[in-house]
């Protein structure tokens, strides 16, 4: 036998069933595997491209809302107009309306243009004064009433420009569109160009977008997210307070204490079904129960939060139950084995181990709740709200709106300036969602115990 191998070993020839050659079957299986990998990569590529496209679009359309065109010029606050009684009494001064402030403001604007020698040819007085936002006198009035001592002095005003001038700086409005636009003329835009050159018209960061309340159709430049942010914050707080204790308690009971019978099966099926109910249905429920039956004020963050709580509860219960179920039974045995009562077992051992899962589930549930829109439309939170909700406990009953609803509201307005704000609001919303998701990941890492 050994002699024979010497000759044939010189030329290694593929024999039948050699492992050096892939069999037909093997080739088919490898090809199938390669195909499957390509499908997977393609699926991921498609979703990445879509996501990137969405982000680029939103950022492209929305980032500009964080800048706002403003004129900076000295405003001398004429005492004769703003404080006719002359005693700097705040209540007396409050009788002067924005009309009075508009006069002072426009006079100062024109004086500045004249003083800097900027030509206003082809423009009437009204054309020039129309370039200042209708909201600017109100802003000035608020500043003066907050500090009556300013009357009689000259302050460095930072005065809102109209939305069209803002759009001109951001490239949304051009000379060509201005020809067809009733709200702005090419001559006004030319003046705006000269004001930019003179350094009077600039685009600083737009804090008002974050703090202001919503504004009417004619003054998109003044519209802000303030009320929506407060409303969303109140709602998240209430959702947290109502959902987490109820959800976690329900999950613990169902997982650890409830007998396994037909009733708990029924409850389980219903919880899973509730998680799948369209959110608008919860809106109708909230309208019927909280507003019509219980008589809670509509548009209030309390009602919004209660409706969203109903939606979030099943999500939190499902997440918490799976987190509790994932705790190894050996830990339960160990606790019971040394004579812990069932409650001690749950609170000393099971719950701490389930905590990362519960926290993640809760935060992800809240993130969904933060983006929820449909039920809020039904309970009237889409209304135009100009007043901030009160900072006291009663504030939860004041009319408010929420971030996603504000996005929806602005997206419906005619002026393209509102579309820009709508995208800006989406950016803020996405920032909050990213923060919440990162918090979920960090908490999970922080609380996770090694086995």
């Amino acid at each position, binding site marked *: 036998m050994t002699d024979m191998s010497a000759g044939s070993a010189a030329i290694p020839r593929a024999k039948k069933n050699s492992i050096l050659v892939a069999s037909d079957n093997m080739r088919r299986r490898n090809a199938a595997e390669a195909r499957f990998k390509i499908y997977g990569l393609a699926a991921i590529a498609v979703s990445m491209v879509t996501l990137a496209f969405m982000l680029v679009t939103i950022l492209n359309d929305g980032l500009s809302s964080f800048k706002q065109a403003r004129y900076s010029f000295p405003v001398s606050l004429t005492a004769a107009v703003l404080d006719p009684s002359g005693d700097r009494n705040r209540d007396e001064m409050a009788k002067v309306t924005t009309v009075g402030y508009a006069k002072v403001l426009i006079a100062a604007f024109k004086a500045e243009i004249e003083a800097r020698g900027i030509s206003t040819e082809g423009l009437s007085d009204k054309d020039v004064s129309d370039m200042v936002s209708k909201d600017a006198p109100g802003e000035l009035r608020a500043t003066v009433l907050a500090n009556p001592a300013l009357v009689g002095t000259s302050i460095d005003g930072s005065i809102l420009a109209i939305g069209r001038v803002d759009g001109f700086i951001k490239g949304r409005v051009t000379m060509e569109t201005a020809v067809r636009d009733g709200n702005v003329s090419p001559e006004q835009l030319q003046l705006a160009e000269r004001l930019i050159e003179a350094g009077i018209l600039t685009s600083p960061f737009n804090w008002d977008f974050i703090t202001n309340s919503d504004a009417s159709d004619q003054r998109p430049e003044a519209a802000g997210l303030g009320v929506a942010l407060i409303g969303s914050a109140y709602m998240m707080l209430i959702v947290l307070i109502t959902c987490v204790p109820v959800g976690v308690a329900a999950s613990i009971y169902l997982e650890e204490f409830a*007998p*396994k019978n037909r009733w708990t099966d029924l409850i389980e099926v219903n919880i899973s079904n509730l998680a799948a109910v369209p959110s608008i249905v919860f809106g109708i429920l909230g309208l019927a129960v909280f507003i019509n039956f219980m008589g809670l004020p509509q548009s209030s963050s309390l009602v919004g939060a209660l409706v969203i709580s109903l939606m979030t509860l099943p999500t939190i219960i499902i997440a918490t139950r799976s987190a509790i179920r994932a705790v*190894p039974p*050996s*830990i*339960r*045995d*160990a*606790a*019971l*084995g*040394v*004579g*812990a*009562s069932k409650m*001690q077992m749950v609170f*000393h*051992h099971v719950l701490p*181990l389930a905590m990362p899962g519960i926290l993640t589930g809760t935060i992800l549930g809240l993130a969904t709740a933060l983006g929820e829109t449909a039920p809020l439309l039904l309970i009237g939170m889409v209304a135009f709200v100009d007043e901030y909700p009160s900072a006291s406990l009663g504030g939860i009953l004041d009319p408010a709106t929420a971030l996603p609803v504000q996005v929806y509201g602005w997206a419906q307005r005619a002026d393209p300036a509102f579309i820009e704000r709508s995208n800006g609001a989406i950016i803020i919303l996405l920032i909050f969602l990213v923060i919440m998701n990162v918090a979920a990941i960090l908490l999970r890492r922080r609380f996770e*115990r*090694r*086995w």
Partner: protein
Amino acid sequence: MNDMRTMERIVSTEGNKITARNVQVYYGTSHAIKDVDVDILDKTVTAFIGPSGCGKSTFLRCLNRMNDTISVCKVTGNILLEGENIYDSRVDPVQLRAKVGMVFQKPNPFPKSIYENVAYGPRIHGLTRNKAELDAVVESSLKKAALWKEVKDRLAAPGTGLSGGQQQRLCIARAIATAPEVLLMDEPCSALDPIATAQVEELIDDLRSQFAVVIVTHSMQQAARVSQRTAFFHLGNLVEYGETGQIFTNPKDPRTESYISGRIG
């Protein structure tokens, strides 16, 4: 293994600790334990042997009512701990489990520090009045479990960071910290290597001086090494129960003989 030496072992019988009479266990419709009568003696190691699924673990878990956690499990008959029926409606299983401690098959320390693992039982049962007493209980329990020397400098380290054998001894320390009268061990060495097994077996022999130990094991050599009395279970029946030496050298029942000689199981 020299099984013969078990013959020479002196068996001290200080009366029954646990008396089981006519015990039946049902899982739903299946009858897992049939008519078991056993007397567990105090200060004695009793081994339960038998093939997989013969009900020895199930019966062990009846002795501290751990089977209560399984909703379909139903136990009838009498199990008396020092003359008191542990299945009496007045008995709180939580209180019972402080007296009848248990060590499980897989080492299952709590994901807490070594100290907290041992201190947990005394703390929830209110056995100590202050920190110094608790420290003393922790120390003596770890010493009894032959773990003190290895961990005394790192009591704050997580119990899950110990080796498998150390974890199992930690679990034994945790069980004896509540000062039980009976210690139940469900295959305590099945997840351990031979060295750790030898350590735990030695420990079991030491523990015998303080309380009754009941051990379920798959290893007949282990039963022969550590126990004074052995019960052989087969298909839910208690086939034979007697002194370990007699069971292994002179079994009365042919099924016992088949099992220990390796013909069934």
